[in-house]
């Protein structure tokens, strides 16, 4: 009984949470509805820092995405799995108890969308939903309460408490409080928050989130966007300034980063987090894709001089078009002035990181034959960097490494091509020698250095030699994934994990139709081919299964089933694209296409 009651409550709440979103255009467009939306924002206390709107269930239950999803084989497989079957039996019990199908319940409860908010003052989270039928909502609420009461009684738990506040009756079921106010259902975890909302509902003159400056300023995130088949299912508004002041000790808000990788990947975003008053997030459902955007206002002066390496002078740093090579898993193009970053490390990082960088600088300078790593080596390349990863094929199983890694390459433009090509070639030869010396000390395979000139494209590489005296019972060592290569194509230098990829990159059109994305504002672009990624993962399926067995202590068959499910989910996705830009409004956009049948 207790379990069933929890299922009913959890399901109802999860349904609202997952169902979402906001406003279908017809409802949102009406003046009456507009005023209702506004009033909800006016009910929330001014101390609220996160506010989200979820679309009515109709918006996604009737969307082509759902129709497509439920017909896919991976979905059907998951739907029939023991875990889901168990949950489905719980749903059936919930439907029986409520006397209605869950889908009908979701559609009715979320007919005008769902509103969610977090108020740090009370540590309360609230959910507000407006049903389209006041009487129906009252009947459902009564059924849930009756069910919860009987369940508590049967299991000897404390009875369901009820209390009245300014004419609104609220109920406490386990850790949740819920109340019905006309057509509105309110669910929260804190009674103080419930009272604050009731106060504002009755007295609109009280200060509320609706007239908080961060919220009014951020109203350019539209809640009523529905263009053609594109449905906005989720919109979130965040009071970044308040969160920043409450979490001032957090690493994300420090002027100097404590982590090199964090700065390299997120440096520009950190500047925004440290200055922007608010941020917004939206999630849209398109007929063939899901897209999400995280955005916030931006001003050039927010980027300190030290972060120029990330966004370029006056935030004009732009990524080149990503490399296009057939069958690639991922391509990344970005603007990062690595030399500037290295030389400005004193401003960017704390003492600990700077100590490590000083040590690394000394080692790398030795490795690069006395050339200063920051200014001579990193300074030899332009800040527009491009990376690509493609799957590898091996001649036979006997000549395959036990773990098969994709090959990857980085392309950059040389500032002084003629002088630097010679330097890079010499450094590369020293590097191969260094690897051989270190490898020999540890009994690792050795590299054989080779070179060729493909037309006017010189390529230098090292390939690992199979030791005829040695038995490779479990496949070749991981090193055989690599044949480190250096190639030149025009003014570009290519560093690749394999000679084959170096050749393919060198032969591709590195200059492209134009040197920058036309009218582009992107700082970083990532393109991912999920099917190619799936192929690369499948070639290492045994290793993934073994890792799952280690991490979860599972049997091989259970681990294999989980990996198969993961790969099945990837089967649903086509291409994905991530785009980071710092234009008038900084935005991080993610778009994932799904594979149409």
């Amino acid at each position, binding site marked *: 009984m207790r379990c069933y009651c929890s299922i009913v409550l959890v399901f109802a709440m999860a349904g609202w949470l997952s169902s979402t979103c906001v406003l279908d255009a017809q409802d949102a467009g009406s003046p009456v509805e507009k005023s209702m939306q506004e009033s909800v924002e006016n009910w929330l206390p001014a101390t609220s820092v996160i506010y989200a709107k979820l679309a009515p269930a109709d918006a996604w239950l009737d969307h082509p995405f759902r129709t497509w999803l439920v017909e896919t084989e991976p979905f059907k497989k998951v739907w029939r799995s023991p875990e889901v079957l168990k949950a489905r039996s719980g749903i059936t019990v919930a439907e029986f108890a409520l006397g209605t199908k869950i889908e009908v319940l979701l559609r009715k409860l979320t007919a005008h969308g769902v509103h969610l908010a977090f108020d740090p003052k009370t540590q309360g989270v609230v959910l507000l939903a407006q049903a389209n039928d006041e009487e129906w909502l009252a009947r459902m609420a009564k059924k849930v309460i009756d069910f919860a009461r009987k369940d508590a009684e049967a299991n000897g738990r404390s009875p369901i408490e009820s209390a009245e506040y300014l004419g609104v009756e609220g109920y406490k079921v386990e850790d949740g409080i819920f109340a019905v106010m006309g057509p509105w259902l309110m669910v929260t975890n804190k009674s103080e928050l419930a009272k604050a909302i009731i106060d504002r509902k009755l007295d609109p003159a009280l200060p509320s989130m609706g007239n908080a400056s961060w919220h009014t300023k951020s109203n350019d995130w539209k809640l009523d966007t529905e263009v053609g088949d594109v449905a906005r299912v989720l919109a979130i508004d965040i009071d970044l300034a308040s969160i920043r002041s409450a979490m001032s000790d957090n690493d994300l808000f420090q002027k100097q980063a404590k982590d090199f990788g964090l700065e390299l990947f997120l440096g520009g975003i950190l500047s925004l987090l440290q200055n922007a008053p608010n941020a917004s997030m939206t999630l849209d459902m398109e007929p063939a894709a899901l897209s999400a955007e995280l955005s916030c206002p931006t001003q050039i002066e927010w980027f300190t001089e030290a972060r120029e390496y990330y966004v370029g002078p006056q935030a004009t740093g732009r990524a080149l078009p990503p490399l296009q090579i057939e069958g690639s898993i991922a391509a990344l193009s970005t603007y990062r002035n690595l030399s500037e970053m290295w030389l400005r490390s004193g401003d960017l990082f704390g003492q600990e990181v700077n100590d490590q960088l000083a040590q690394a600088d000394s080692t790398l300078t030795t490795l690069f034959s006395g050339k200063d790593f920051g200014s001579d080596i990193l300074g030899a390349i332009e800040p527009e960097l491009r990376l690509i990863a493609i799957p590898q094929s091996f001649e036979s199983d006997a000549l395959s490494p*036990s*773990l098969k890694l994709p090959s990857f390459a980085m392309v950059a433009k040389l500032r002084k091509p003629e002088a630097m090509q010679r330097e890079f070639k010499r450094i590369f030869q020293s590097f191969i020698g260094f690897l051989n010396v270190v490898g020999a000390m540890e*009994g690792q395979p050795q590299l054989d250095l080779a070179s060729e000139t493909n037309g006017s494209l010189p390529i230098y590489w090292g390939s690992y030699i199979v*030791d005829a*005296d*040695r038995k490779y019972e*479990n*496949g070749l*060592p*991981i090193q055989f994934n690599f044949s480190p290569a250096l190639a030149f194509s025009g003014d570009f230098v290519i560093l690749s994990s394999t000679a084959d990829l170096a050749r393919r990159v060198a032969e591709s059109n590195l200059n492209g139709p134009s040197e920058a994305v036309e009218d582009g504002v992107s700082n970083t672009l990532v393109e991912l081919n999920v099917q190619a990624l799936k192929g690369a993962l499948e070639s290492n399926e*045994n*290793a993934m*299964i*073994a*890792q799952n*067995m*280690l*991490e*979860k*202590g*599972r*049997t*091989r068959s*259970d681990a294999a089933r989980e990996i198969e499910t993961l790969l099945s989910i990837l089967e649903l996705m086509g291409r994905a694209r991530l785009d980071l830009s710092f234009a008038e409004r900084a935005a991080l956009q993610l778009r994932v296409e799904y594979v149409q049948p």
Partner: protein
Amino acid sequence: MYSLSQSIAPSTPISAIVPTWAWQPWSPSDEEPWNEARVQLMFRRGGFGASPQQRREALRGGPKVTLAILKGEDRSAAGRRETFELDSEAIGTSVRTGSSSEGLAAWWLHRMLQSPSPLLEKMTLFWHGHFATGAEKVMDAELMYQQNQLLRRHALGDFRPMVQAISRDPAMLIYLDSVSNRKAHPNENYARELMELFCLGEGNYSEQDVQQLARCFTGWEIRRKMFRFNPYQHDSGLKTIFDQADIESGEDAIDCVLARSAMPRFVCTKLVRYFVCDEPNAPDSLIAPLADQFVRSGYSIGEIVDTILQSRWMLSQWSVGRKIRSPVEFAMEWMRSLEATTNLEHLARMLRPLGQAVFYPPNVKGWDGGRAWINSSTLIGRSNFVVDLLGDPNTRFDGKSLEQWCSDQGIQDHKSWIDWLNESLLAIPLSDSEYQPLFDRDNEGAASASRANALITVSRIPKFLLS
């Protein structure tokens, strides 16, 4: 709770135990029936505990069937062995690719938990402590893996080929500095430990024997992770060891050491300590019949282990609670009894503060064992271990929650759960003063919390340390 034979009282001094009686095979009688307590004793000593299903089979079948289960020679093991070896190989390949000794520990714990031949893993653990080699010095997961497989291959075989093989093992050569044992500067480390720790024991050799033996091993090197004999670094002159003057090679020298009368006594004493009682040491008179059998069998380890595990002495009430569970035994018995699975890498990490990280013995002597397992730090560690394990979301019991597992075992209420724990996890049953508080403390709350709390409490009772 079940009781064992009272044919020798638990208080009988070890010196009063009659050798001819001790090593006779135990057989059931009206006074001494084959019962649940003996089943569990045999599984604890010869393996790492057993699942309820295995215990039921053993109870039906008697000691011979129980030994067959421990050796993986029962009918049900045949079907599981192939799947298990495939699983183990997949994990082994994965961790060796990552070259992680911690991953290697996880691989071995998987074998201890899931092997259809737990006695083989128990003996591999014994030899790992005997021929102790530490990954922190070897610094090569592949070599540690190879050594572990070598120990497993010979674990229940003959002692002579085992010693010959371990003397050429690359991990051992690195650990005991044989790689720097050259004609001009013989390194005595391996020679000394071969006699003192591996074969004869202290007082059974002289310094001159060590020096002569070290000369025999000169030129035993490793190249590209494999043994290599370098004749240019080998002292090919004749050496005199134990008054035998015609020894030239390392192989001959090992045979000379193995032929000493102290060797069978030394090895059998260690095996008795491992399987029967931590202390006091068995007197020579009690070891002598085993040592004779060891010589007669051509140094067959398997024969001696069979004799010990089926013996009257080991299956008597006297030997119950005479051993302190090592951290690995503590963890594995707990998990195998409850059919538990968890994150194996995390499990390997959790064993470190308990004082027994496999592949990382404290020194060349291995783990001291016995009372040395227990100090204030390791006691807290054992307590935290159970709490951590139950708190890990990856911990499942035959793939289920603890509550569901109990339900499937027919354990419906708190009392039946406490009784099950008392009978299944403890070598010595709880006294009334230990039993009663379990009801005061754990009778409240949801079933899942109550099951876990009771399990934690029982695992903290001092008696749980005993095997």
